[in-house]
Every structure is written in structure tokens, then in C-alpha cells.
């Protein structure tokens, strides 16, 4: 533990992101500023668990923001099968600030399917559902 008490300072080039602090549980907006979801978890390209990592293995990268059932398992434990993860690929992310902005429209994303379903099957069918309140 001695090492922990007298830590060295590390200067890294480029911008630093801490997952808990800057990414998890932040609101995700699409390119038009429409809320898409919240970051429920993050996927990284790490090697399979329990296998020793050979020295010199390149660092994993952040591949996608996750949403959907993964929120339930993050809260209550367990893990959804990989096929049930709803991914927003990192290449679609345009900016990380107080909110996370995407560079694409939210409409066609998988993360928005429940919203689309409820809109098309219920809300848009009620008279005035497409009425602009302003």
C-alpha cells in the first residue's frame, strides 16, 4: 500500500475521460438535440475474462455505449446476453460534455425502438398526437 500513498503523477496527452465521472448515466442527445437514452453501461474491446493478458497487448478501446436491459442488470446484478445489448457505436459520438451528443439522428437507432413503437402504435393514433403545441 506504500505505493498508493506516494503516487506518481502521470501526464497524458489528449483528453481524459473517466467512465463513471464523464460517461455513465449521462443523457445522450442526437444530432438535433433530441434525447435518445441515458448511458447505461459501456462496452470495451478487452480480451475474454480470466485469461492472462500478455505484456504488450494494445490497450482496449471503448467500442460502444450500451442501453436497454443492461440497466436492469447493472442495478440488480447479472448480465444480459450479448445479443440483447443495445449498442450506440463510439464512432457515432460527436461530443462528450455535460451531455453526450451524437453525430447522427436518433430516429433509426436501435436505442430508440421502444419510443418508435409507442409512437406509431399508440400516441400518434390519438387525435392531436402530431399537433405542434407551439
Amino acid at each position, binding site marked *: *500500500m506504500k*505505493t*498508493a*500513498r506516494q*503516487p*506518481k*503523477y*502521470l501526464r*497524458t*496527452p*489528449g*483528453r*481524459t*475521460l*473517466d*467512465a*463513471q*465521472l*464523464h460517461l*455513465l448515466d449521462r443523457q445522450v442527445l442526437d444530432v438535433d438535440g433530441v434525447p435518445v437514452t441515458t448511458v447505461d*453501461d*459501456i*462496452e*470495451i*474491446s*478487452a*480480451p*475474454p*475474462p*480470466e*485469461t*492472462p*493478458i500478455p*505484456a*504488450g497487448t494494445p*490497450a*482496449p*478501446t*471503448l467500442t460502444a455505449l*450500451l442501453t436497454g436491459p*443492461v440497466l436492469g*442488470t*447493472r442495478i440488480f446484478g447479472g*448480465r444480459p446476453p450479448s445479443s440483447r*445489448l443495445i449498442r450506440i457505436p*463510439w*464512432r*457515432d*459520438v*460527436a*461530443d*462528450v460534455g455535460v451531455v453526450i451528443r451524437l*453525430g447522427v439522428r436518433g430516429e433509426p437507432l436501435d436505442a430508440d425502438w421502444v419510443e418508435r413503437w409507442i409512437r406509431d402504435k399508440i400516441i400518434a393514433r390519438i387525435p392531436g398526437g402530431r399537433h405542434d403545441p407551439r
Partner: protein
Amino acid sequence: MILGDVLGTPVHDPAGLRLGRVADARFTMNGPPGQLLADARLLGLIVSPHSASSFLGYERTGLARPWPIAHLLRWRHRGSFLVLWADIDTIGTDTVRLREGFTAYSPALNDTGNE
């Protein structure tokens, strides 16, 4: 791999001594540029010896207000350190094992807690 699986996992040194738990994962955006943002590479893990619970945003920043809350949380987070990816030997489901001779870096971010 899902980050949620790693957060909260106990961390051990090569001799099996328990050092704490994974409190956070740090990324740097200095990889080759992707479509919109540069790739975010895993720089390392933040290990906290006392608690891996949420720090309500007081992690590793210079933020010191409001007075007792900031101090209380910083105290709960005392002794935490950053280990680089290169120093990680195995990431398992119930332990993260570090390599022989790992280096503990200060987990502090600079002033704004951002760039």
C-alpha cells in the same frame, strides 16, 4: 466486455494482497481519429482501497464545495490510485490481478475535472 462487470471488482497485487476495488476506468482520446471523435483507449483503472461506491462526482477533481460533503467524500476516497493497462495481468469476474512491480499513479484530474 461490459465495463459494469469490472467496476466494483476487488483488485489484488501479484502476491494476492487485496488493494481495494475498481472504482472507475480511465480512457484517453489520443488514438487514431475515428469518424467524429478520436478513439478512446483504456488508460487504466482507478483503484479505491476503501469504497467503490459512487462518489457523487467528487472523483479526483479539485472541487471542494459545499464544505462537509466534498470533504467527506474525498475522505472516503483517500488512498485511491491509478494503475495503467500495461500493469494489469488478468481481469477476472471476481478479481483484477496486477503485474509484478506495478506503478500506482495519482488519480487526480486537473482543475476542471475534464480536458
